[in-house]
């Protein structure tokens, strides 16, 4: 298959080209002298192309509009694939894109020739033909044959993607508004993965970090070189689990169980995002996968188990008011997405400052946190948070934002209320 080779070469050249553009834009951003700038580009680009010049201009325009923000890390095609399936998809995509581009150029060469030559201002007299059965058959059959040619590699790739049998490891993925839960049923590990970019960066009060919006507190850790099966569903609304470099995007749907598989080539951190609109913070639920060697993966499993048993022990003791408030403030981060960092409410989401629930009976407060409010975005947190977390956050809510109930709620009360 010579075309596959050509495609790969093309992909490599795109990558090289991207690196060049990156360096050039980087040089521009550094506001170096013209001389240094030229030196940099001479160093990087041995044979500057016209296309390159065009992109340099675009980068310059972009840089002019937002100095300091430009990362020059843009790309023109898929991120580098890290699984064999993702590589197949990229080849397929490039193949089809090239075919489409060639057809486009040929067809519109005719149109632009006609526009230039067959114009009245040149004195061109109109012909009178208006039909040709032969042509109509030709341009019906020819596209059909091209389509058959496209369908064959698409079908084989799709069949390969659908084979989830003989996996080495299974991970259950559950979408929540707006976080991911990962369960390792064979290893008995379970945890949530939430955006870790600070609020200040989003609101422009602090400089944005390198992995802005694509970083989480607990990444999914997976071994490389193993066939990993993901079993995907959702708790509340539809989400979609997506890591571009794995070539996987699958909807997480309440009541449905979807399966995908992947075999990651090499260790590294791979980032993606929720791809299905899932409400207010849809743009703020990234996916981060930390691919490690089998030994490191096993060490991680042991560490996770130790962490879980430590958490369980803490839930049984009696907490002081200060401990509860400190822990509660931490847990409240997630609640604040809707109820506001200071309990002031956000849009349709109710405020907690002075609210009936946060200042009324403890039992009603515990009940809504544990069981949620059906038909709204208020979820049941009983499965998401342990007794200590819920005791802490309820205590915090009842003694913050101007709420002065003085109540202290202990994990044991939460256990009883479940």
């Amino acid at each position, binding site marked *: 298959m010579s075309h596959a080779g050509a495609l790969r070469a093309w992909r490599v050249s795109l990558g090289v080209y991207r690196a060049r553009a990156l360096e050039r834009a980087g040089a521009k951003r550094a506001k170096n002298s013209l001389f240094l700038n030229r030196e940099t580009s001479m160093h990087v680009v041995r044979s500057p192309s016209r296309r390159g010049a065009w992109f340099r201009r*675009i*980068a310059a325009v972009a840089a002019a*509009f*937002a100095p300091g*923000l430009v*990362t020059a890390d*843009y790309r023109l*095609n*898929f991120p580098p694939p890290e699984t064999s399936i993702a590589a197949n*998809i990229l080849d*397929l*995509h490039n193949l089809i894109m090239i075919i489409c581009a060639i*057809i*486009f150029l040929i*067809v*519109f060469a005719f*149109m632009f020739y*006609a526009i230039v030559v*067959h*114009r*009245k*201002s040149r004195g061109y007299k*109109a012909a*009178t033909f*208006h039909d*040709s059965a032969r042509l*109509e058959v030709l*341009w019906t059959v020819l596209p*059909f044959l091209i389509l058959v040619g*496209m*369908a064959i590699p*698409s079908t084989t790739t*799709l069949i390969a993607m659908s084979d989830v049998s003989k996996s080495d490891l299974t991970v259950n993925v559950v979408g929540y508004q707006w976080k991911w839960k990962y369960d390792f049923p064979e290893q008995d590990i379970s945890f949530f993965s939430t955006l870790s970019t600070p609020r200040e960066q*989003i609101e*422009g009060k602090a400089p*944005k970090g390198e*992995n802005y*919006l*694509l970083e989480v507190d607990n990444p999914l850790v997976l071994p490389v070189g193993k066939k990993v099966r993901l079993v995907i569903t959702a708790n509340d*609304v539809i989400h979609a689990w*997506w890591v571009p470099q794995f*070539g996987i*995007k699958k*909807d997480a*749907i309440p009541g*449905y169980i*979807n399966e995908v598989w992947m075999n990651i080539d090499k260790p590294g951190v791979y*980032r993606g*995002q929720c*791809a*299905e*609109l899932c409400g*207010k*913070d*849809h*743009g*703020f639920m990234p996916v981060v996968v930390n691919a490690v060697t089998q030994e490191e993966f096993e060490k991680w499993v042991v560490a996770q188990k130790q962490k879980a048993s430590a958490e369980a022990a803490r839930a049984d003791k009696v907490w002081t008011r200060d401990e509860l408030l400190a822990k509660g403030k931490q847990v409240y981060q997630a609640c604040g997405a809707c109820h506001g960092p200071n309990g002031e409410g956000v*849009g*349709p989401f109710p405020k907690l400052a002075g609210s009936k629930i946060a200042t009324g009976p403890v039992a009603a407060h515990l009940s809504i946190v544990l069981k949620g409010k059906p038909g709204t*975005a208020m979820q049941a947190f009983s499965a998401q948070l342990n007794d200590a977390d819920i005791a802490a956050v309820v205590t915090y809510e009842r003694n913050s934002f101007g709420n002065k109930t003085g109540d202290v709620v202990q994990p044991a009360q939460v256990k009883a209320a479940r």
Partner: protein
Amino acid sequence: MATAAHHHDEHPTGITRWMFTTNHKDIGTMYLLFALMMFLVGGVMALIIRAELFQPGLQITDPHFFNQMTTLHALVMIFGGVMPAFVGFANWQLPLMIGAPDMALPRMNNWSFWILPFAFTLLLSTVFMQGQGGGPSAGWTIYPPLSVQGGIGTDFAILSIHMMGISSVLGAINVIATILNMRAPGMTLMKMPLFVWTWLITAFLLLGAMPVLAGTVTMLLTDRHFGTSFFDAAGGGDPVLFQHVFWFFGHPEVYILILPAFGIVSQVIPTFARKPLFGYDSMVYATASIAFLSHIVWAHHMFTVGMPITGELFFMYATMLIAVPTGVKIFNWIATMWRGSMTFETPMLFAIAFVFLFTIGGLSGLMLSIVPADFQYHDTYFVVAHFHYVLVTGAVLAIFSGVYYWLPKWSGHMYNETLGKWHFWLTMIGMNLTFFPMHFLGLAGMPRRIPDYALQFTEFNQIASVGAFIFGLSQLLFVVLVIRTMRGGAKATEQVWEGADGLEWTLSSPPPYHSFATAPVIK
């Protein structure tokens, strides 16, 4: 005879003329002006979106309001902009093109227009109810369970969709009744101008699609308020069922939005190429096959929901097939231009741009049909780029082309050609700057419907935002041009365009308030 003609020539004035009119020309004008207003309203929403996306971080909207903007932008542009614009064209042009005195059901015609302002008042009023949750915010596709969570805005949207649906179905019935019953003697089906053909087929698509939408949003309404669980897995329902039913409406809807555009372009290109449309018969058959295929490809909008592989293969093959009749149309338009004697007035410029840019959207559509690759494209800016290339550089460019083409006939005045050309070129620059970089954003991995994004997406978003403001502001030129042409300007001749051919060009410009009171005879 003379007294009868006199009786029919009454010409009411004032506000009641517009409220009670049953005249296809008045109703057509109202549809078109309504569409223009909605185009501007939806455009402002798009600019709010693009302003927020100019740089990473949250600057001018909160995420909840951002979601309302994306949702309303789509609903307003589809149901308030493009569809009413095409119905406006149908009202003005169908009777003139087939030699009928008016639409077949004139009173219903009045009603189907006047439902629309109420529907959109209902929909847009939700923006002012931020305390109750604001407008619908689950995307125009209103997928449950997310849409079941929404505030009162979702209910307003559902009821306004019902009203828009009634309006569209009434309009479609009227179009079918008019075309099948009111053609002048000798105007056989295969002699009808292609615009009439595409509208006839579109009307059948509307009849097939809109009731399905009404049904599915009604199920959503009862899920929200009356305890049913059609789409709630916890109650034995199925969230994916909604998507199947929605897209069973949604995909024919795509062709409802583009077939009349094909019709307009098929009128404009022969006029300015001074050469008859190439392959008229195959154009008709291609339109009909597109309409048929549009009903059996809906699940290509939902390849990632986890369908069985046989289902995915079927929908992939069926979708790829649409490229064949669509290709036939593009080849025929180019063959019409080939060896013509072309001039490039504004309508022709827009028509050529339509053929060229719509094809980009068509080819990216073909790419999207390839299931494994679609897993990467799905719900990214690649899809956003694709459907804006078919809807904006497709449908909207065809609407501009049609307005410039027929405005002299409707108003009796020539528009300002220089202003028209400025509008064309600024629109070209603006829209391509806006939508072309979105292809790259999508391939690089930017999901759609997000108010904030990772840093590597900054550059192309900035280009797109700058383009959007150029595109948006240049539409003010169009508004100025239309108002100036309606008020005065050089007198237009009957023929208007040297190469124009068809019954409407045999009438004066503007045509009499009641035209073809006596049917013309077509040889």
